[in-house]
């Protein structure tokens, strides 16, 4: 993977995005870019609009203003599944497995529907083999034939990530994938997420656990009450007085 700088077009370009729910403005003129292979952390107090932003980028919500571009194309009016085919995948904050299917089947669905054309030309593995590799890659091999309803929390999180990875995305949005996990579990999942960079996948990670965020992020973005108030190197951002005020209160 080359590491070119400003000549490279951003992979994801969120421009002046606004989202309202009735009279409530959840997002106000938010700009965000994600470069190929970049690890961007997104933090902010509860209710600041992080999940709304994720839903706008992934297509679950329609934006009221601004635009969202992916690899130079305007995707603002594409339905979610089309954005997945383009190369954006997200994991859900509260895992949403296909309840009646096994772990293996869960992955197979995604592989079958994100299109075989999404795998690289020199990949000669069958779909089943790709599924097995993914299952092993997240450490769920022993549970592969278990119905997803029977998994533990940590296993569900791994499945959630595995499914997103199965979509072979260029950008993965991890929405609070670490919430509620214990220390060791956090490390497990975080390693998986950080491993995405080696595959050339950008990751936008929404998180509250600051230690994980600092370890992960090459760039840190802060959202407060629907507005972006900081965007830069993690060390600079956490020392930004505005950010400190937002977290410690007035």
């Amino acid at each position: 993977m080359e590491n070119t700088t400003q000549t490279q077009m951003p992979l994801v370009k969120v421009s002046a995005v606004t989202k309202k729910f009735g009279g409530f403005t959840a997002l106000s003129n938010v700009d965000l870019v994600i470069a190929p292979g970049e690890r961007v952390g997104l933090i902010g107090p509860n209710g600041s609009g992080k999940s709304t932003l994720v839903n706008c980028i992934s297509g679950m919500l329609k934006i009221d203003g601004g635009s969202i571009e992916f690899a130079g194309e305007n995707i603002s009016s594409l339905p979610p599944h089309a954005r997945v085919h383009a190369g954006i995948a997200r994991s859900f904050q509260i895992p949403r497995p296909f309840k009646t299917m096994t772990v293996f089947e869960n992955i197979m669905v995604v592989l079958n529907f994100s299109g075989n054309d999404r795998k690289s030309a020199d990949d000669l593995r069958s779909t089943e083999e790709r599924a097995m590799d993914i299952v092993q890659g997240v450490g769920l091999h022993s549970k592969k034939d278990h119905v997803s309803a029977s998994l533990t929390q940590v296993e569900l999180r791994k499945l959630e990530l595995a499914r997103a990875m199965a979509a072979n995305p260029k950008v993965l949005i991890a929405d609070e994938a670490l919430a509620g996990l214990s220390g060791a579990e956090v490390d497990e999942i975080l390693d998986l997420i950080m491993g995405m960079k080696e595959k050339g996948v950008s990751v936008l990670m929404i998180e509250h656990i600051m230690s994980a965020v600092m370890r992960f992020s090459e760039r840190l973005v802060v959202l407060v009450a629907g507005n972006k108030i900081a965007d830069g190197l993690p060390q600079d951002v956490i020392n930004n007085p505005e950010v400190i005020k937002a977290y410690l209160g007035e």
Partner: protein
Amino acid sequence: MNKNRNFYLGLVLVLPLLASLPFWVQSEYFFFAAYSVLQFVILAVAWNILGGYAGYVNFGSAAFFAIGAYSTIVGYKLHFPQGANILLGTFMAGLVGLGMGYITLRLKGVFFSIATLAMSVVLLTIVTNTPFLGGARGVYVIVSRESPVGTGPYIHWLYFLILAMAVVSVIISRIIEHSWLGQGLMAIRDDEMAAEGLGVPTLKLKLIATSISGALMGLAGTTFPYLITYVEPTATFNLSFAVNSIAMPIVGGLGTWIGPLLGALLLGSIQQIASVTLSSSWNLLIVGGVLVLFVTLAPNGLVGFFKKWSGK
């Protein structure tokens, strides 16, 4: 694949047996009863494609059945041959299925179901008020007394037709179940938002399901006019079609091709026996009762029951 081979093998063995019945079963009534049961097989299997695989509960089965029947009426009045009527009815029902999907599929869960009921009644009202379709007074269909295929009364011919249709429906359902379409529909059923968010084109798949489901239900209706020879709205749009097409898959086991088949065979036969020995009112009481029982006590139906019993 083993399973495939076993299925088609079984089919090849059973089908000739069923097809040969007219040659050695004397009772004409038997074939009327068999027709009714096979008709339910088609309805149940068709309903299950949208209801069992995708999880969208359609209350309007009667409307699709009726579209099939009334397309035949139209074709009959225009002197089309029987085969053309069957194709016409299936196609029209599929088209309406597509249209219904377009209108209602943005609705979720219960609202979708209520919308399908509403659509069904609107259609019923339109038909009742359309003189060309006979309106409330109905239309008579004249059929020959003898089966065009040699051996006996016309009901034998109808029996062959509906048997063929039932086999076709089951095969189609099974193919869907084992294909990417079935897999996508089941993902939609399990978690539609996750499915859409992971690349499954949910709207497209749902539209395909409503069209195929509607088409097959219409298919079941296309030969109905030839059976009862007098077609009027209340018999054709009967709510009992709606409740049966929901009850049979639930009783047999949702989400598999064999569940609705079993449910239809079981409930259909019970209803035939009940209407002969008791009365037709007891019919629907039994269906209602069985439905409530299964839904509360055995939600996975007969198939689920067998699975548990064989220790899966």
